[in-house]
């Protein structure tokens, strides 16, 4: 067996989806190929780490705000350090920020008096400027969280047809492990020494 084929079968082997005959062929190749053993160990670690990831990360609104503020400040610092163009080099930053704010206030005043801007889909509130004159993202862009914003209004046909397949996909992926969970837990690893990859050691005879 060539390494290319062995690597193609590795993910299926880690998931326990490889047919016994292929598994034996792969094991034979792995016994002789250190590079593929390393590759298998990496695949196993990666899949284990992926399975260990929480389905979602709970981040408080306060932390989210603080992080965004830090990003904006860092971006502003970076912009200050970057070489300015000829005309902005002589323009002090606070004055520029004030001028921008004045234009924004004027624009909002006009919009409020005349109603919605023609052709514009919606009017957003003027962005707040922080102490450094950097515009802050309005709260409407931060809430609801992005993950809810990404949800389609109409699910694709496949998803609409069998949503539970996707809700329970982690369980379904590990169906074999979970069905025989107790038997697997009682399996001992001590009687036959295994390699760090969890594979049978190569036979010398």
């Amino acid at each position, binding site marked *: 067996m060539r390494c290319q084929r062995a690597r193609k079968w590795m993910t299926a082997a880690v998931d326990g989806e490889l047919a016994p005959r292929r*598994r034996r062929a792969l094991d034979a190749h792995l016994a002789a190929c250190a590079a593929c053993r390393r590759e298998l160990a990496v695949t196993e670690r990666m899949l284990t780490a992926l399975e260990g990831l929480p389905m979602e990360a709970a981040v408080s609104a306060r932390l989210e705000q603080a992080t965004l503020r830090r990003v904006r400040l860092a971006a502003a610092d970076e912009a200050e350090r970057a070489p300015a163009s000829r005309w902005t080099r002589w323009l002090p930053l606070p004055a520029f920020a004030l001028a921008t704010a004045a234009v924004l206030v004027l624009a909002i005043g006009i919009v409020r008096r005349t109603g919605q801007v023609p052709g514009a889909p919606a009017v957003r509130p003027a962005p707040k400027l922080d102490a450094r004159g950097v515009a802050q993202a309005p709260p409407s862009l931060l809430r609801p969280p992005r993950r809810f914003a990404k949800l389609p209004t109409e699910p694709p046909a496949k998803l609409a047809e*069998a949503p539970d397949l996707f*809700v329970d996909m982690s369980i379904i992926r590990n*169906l074999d492990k979970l069905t025989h969970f107790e*038997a697997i837990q009682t399996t001992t690893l001590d009687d036959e020494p295994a390699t760090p990859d969890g594979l049978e050691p190569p036979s010398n005879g």
Partner: protein
Amino acid sequence: MKRRAAIALVLLALAAPAVRAQERHGRPWQELTPEEQWRAWENYQRYQQLPEQRQKNLERRYQQFRDMPPQERQRLRQNYDTYRGLPPRQRQEFIDKYHRWKGRK
């Protein structure tokens, strides 16, 4: 009396395919909670990245899962919770045991 029984039979006949479809495919999208809809959407995107063979495998396993009695499905869910709760080292040990167990089968 006969008429009522006939109506009931017709209604049953009409409802049966829908019930069978729900048994086969689970709940409709609208019945999922927002959290479940989100999880399903994310997993659907992952699913789309998989090779066709793996997609088919997942669908086959899903049917196996659907065909299980509710108690068995519940047992699997509990096992999954236990598995997810394992610390990384124990989880790795479990995977090693799984390969060993699979090799002995």
